[in-house]
């Protein structure tokens, strides 16, 4: 090998900052950082000047003053004497409530629509294609307004539920759909209902243990337990037994017509129902497409290979197809859940009191704290989305194809 003589080491020259690839990235980053600092300083300076001109300051103290407004939909008790912070909390809970309900319904409808869209039956897949296209290509806001209009304009008034009024309650006279909201039975927790609930939770835990045991047993001995039937029995039997042994402690309070409105039961406001249904229907169309593409992504050879191994069709679905399809389905599914949560801020259109309407609406209007209010509001949505996306990353890394 020929001997290589290194050129004599030169000292650092200033031009290297620009022309030497080793230092250039440092220069660029320092310049970018300086420009970012300058523009942030400019924005902050402007804000300080503007606030000073308006005689305002920047403080979150308003959160602890009396809110002075009512919230018509509340999960935790709230009166107008409570603080703005509590109003924000009520709003947050309302947002989470509609998002949670929406995610469940959207998944159910979406999976159904996605699977049916793959059907060989022309009529069925046609209906589902129409449904998906109609939902996906129209703004969500229109759907919310349409469902809300259906709920308030096309449903009977409470007085129509009187004798000869032309409207009647559904589900054995337990649910009333009226333009004042949907009235559903309210469970009354009597003496001893804690035992029933405890038994129910225990049986849920038992189902979980059973499934693990069955899997372990199958891996060790190859014998299969009738898991589904056993879990079904565990789900219903102990809780029902406890219910009757304790003398039926849980009763339902049915809504009844009194005066001009229903009394008793739980009143679910039309704004919540409209928002919930519209969000679920809209998101379900996207979920349907995700499910469809997930199932199509598993190649047919996988099914055939499983059959060749002698695995039964339903076990094939459970052990071969679904795990592979879920790997494709779940990440976009979760980002749809995220979208649904963010879209729930459209509650404004129907007057549902979510966090955008309490903290970002009335509180800001009453206190004039736009910057602080919107900052808190944005932080809430940001935290929700970061939590959900970090969960998604965890899932992604757990199901990632293990290569090499």
């Amino acid at each position, binding site marked *: 090998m020929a001997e290589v003589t290194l050129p004599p080491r030169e000292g650092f020259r200033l031009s290297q900052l620009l022309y030497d690839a080793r230092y250039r990235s440092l220069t660029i980053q320092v310049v970018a*950082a300086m420009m970012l600092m300058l523009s942030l300083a400019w924005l902050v300076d402007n804000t300080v000047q*503007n606030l000073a001109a308006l005689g305002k300051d920047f403080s979150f103290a308003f959160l602890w003053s009396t809110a002075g407004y009512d919230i018509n939909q509340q999960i935790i008790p709230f009166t107008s004497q409570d603080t703005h912070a509590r109003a924000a909390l009520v709003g947050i809970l309302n947002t989470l409530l509609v998002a949670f309900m929406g995610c469940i319904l959207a998944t159910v409808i979406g999976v159904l629509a996605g699977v049916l869209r793959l059907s*060989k039956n022309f009529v069925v897949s046609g209906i589902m294609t129409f449904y998906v*296209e109609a939902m996906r290509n129209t*703004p969500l806001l229109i759907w919310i307004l*349409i469902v809300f209009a259906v709920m308030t304009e096309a449903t009977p008034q409470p007085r129509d539920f009187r004798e000869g009024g032309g409207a009647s309650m559904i589900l054995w006279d337990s649910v009333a759909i009226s333009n004042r909201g949907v009235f559903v039975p309210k469970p009354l927790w009597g003496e001893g209902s804690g035992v029933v609930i405890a038994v129910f939770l225990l049986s849920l835990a038992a189902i979980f243990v059973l499934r693990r045991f069955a899997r372990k047993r199958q891996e060790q001995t190859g014998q299969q337990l009738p898991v589904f039937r056993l879990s079904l029995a565990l789900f219903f039997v102990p809780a029902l037994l406890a219910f009757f042994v304790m003398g039926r402690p849980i009763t339902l309070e049915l809504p009844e017509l009194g005066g001009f409105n229903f009394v008793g039961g739980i009143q679910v406001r039309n704004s919540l129902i409209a928002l919930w249904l519209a969000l679920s229907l809209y998101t379900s169309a996207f979920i349907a497409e995700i499910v469809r593409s997930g199932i199509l992504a598993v190649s047919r050879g996988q099914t055939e290979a499983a059959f060749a191994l002698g695995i039964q069709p339903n076990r094939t679905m459970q052990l071969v197809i679904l795990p592979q399809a879920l790997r494709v389905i779940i990440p976009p599914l979760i980002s749809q859940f995220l979208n649904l949560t963010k879209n729930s801020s459209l509650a404004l259109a129907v007057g549902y009191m979510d966090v955008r309407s309490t903290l970002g609406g009335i509180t800001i209007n009453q206190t004039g704290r*736009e910057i602080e209010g919107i900052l808190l509001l*944005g932080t809430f949505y940001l935290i929700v*989305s970061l939590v959900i996306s970090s969960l998604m990353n965890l899932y992604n890394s757990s199901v990632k194809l293990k290569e090499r």
Partner: protein
Amino acid sequence: MTNQSSVAFVRRDIIPPAPPPPGQAGVLKWMRENLFSSVTNTLLTILSIYFIWSILAAIMPWTLNGVWVAGSLTECREIRDARGLESAACWAVINERWLQLLFGFYPTDDRLLSSLFYAEPLAAAGGLEAVFGAGSNATARIEFVNAMKADLSNLTIFFFGYWRPLLAVALLVVAVAPILYASLPRRLLLFSLAYPFIGVFLFWGGSFWGPMTVALGLVAALYLGRVVAGGYGLLGGGLAAVLAFILFFLNPLGVVGHTGLFPLFPHVKGVLDSVMPLGLPAIPSDQFGGFMLAIIIGTAGIVLSLPIGILLALGRQSTMPFIRWVCVTFIEVIRGVPLIVWLFVASTLLKYFLPPGSSFDALLRVIILVTLFASAYIAEVVRGGLAALPKGQYEAADSLGLDYWKSMQLIVLPQALKISIPGIVNTFIGLFKDTTLVVFVGLRDPLGLTNAIRATGEWNGIYWELYIFVALLFFTFCFFMSRYSMYLERKLQTDRR
């Protein structure tokens, strides 16, 4: 043959092909295989057909029996009762107000309308100048215009009264076509580049020289940058271009008063205006509305967000930690917060962040925030495209000795963008649908206008007809775009396999 004599019968000719037995061919076979292959399937088919039938039975009479000509909802109901119908849509509201739903309160070109179609009453009223001229009576003018509009058909007003937005949208189609369809001549792309200025001029009006000088200034800055880059390298060129831009458009650090020589832009525009006054009546953006608003915000949002999104995606992939960190933070913060909150920021907070006393247009503020919002989503789409490229492409570019920008421009981005076009189109569909949210910050989008229409005495209490019309408008556009994205996906798939 050998045993011809020993066998009783041998067929000499081929049997003519017989048609398959009934039930094994054509519609019957198809129906049996697809619709009635099993008990469950048959049940599903019957249920679905019953479902379709019951929906159609509920909707079709209402739709088809609709009243098309009426002055108010009460009149609609009277006509319905007179015809003895149980339910009937009141399409009359669409028939009367569709122009408003499309254009909001955008003013019509009344001079053109009256001189073309209303010449005799115009002459009777004293001619164009007497009615519309500088010293004309405002009340008389409004009366004259109202009488004219009542007299003319909506279609005439559509084509001639709203020729400016109509022409702008038509030219938009021409400008977008060469981007969407690669088979069109490439020279059309020059028009696409010029379109933003033409579109702004047609929609907002004002002096023709405004958008023209802006375009000239941009071209001059870029050209200067190129010339300098030839002699002093890329960095010098970039600095020269930025300097030229600042001299032309910005008042550098406020050292020179507004009456000074710099920025050059107002002076050049002033000179051109005085030499050759050309222009259309200026229309402030608080008069914009309707479906036109969705098109303006959607198009501006996507056009402006595309370059920002690409830069953000490149920044997110960058090897420089600070740049990457800034881009990731920006993208995650924007995507983590709903658009409606950002619009709220645009309408209430932006005034705090800008220098005291500065105020600008509500529509422009919304466009800026929508652009930032869309660019974060575009960045994620483009990042997907960048990640989908095999690493060998990057390495090949490096081994050819190309610098970062050249390798991106010549090797990486053309391929990555091609992969991400369907995603970009989907982002655009989402953005287009989201333009309905501007109703919450007080702009008059179609849904806001349905409220305005319902607030009038004649149409109080009308819901479905308006919602259906607006929904169909959006559906038509978005459906076309989603089909285009599917066409593109198919096209791109063939050459990648």
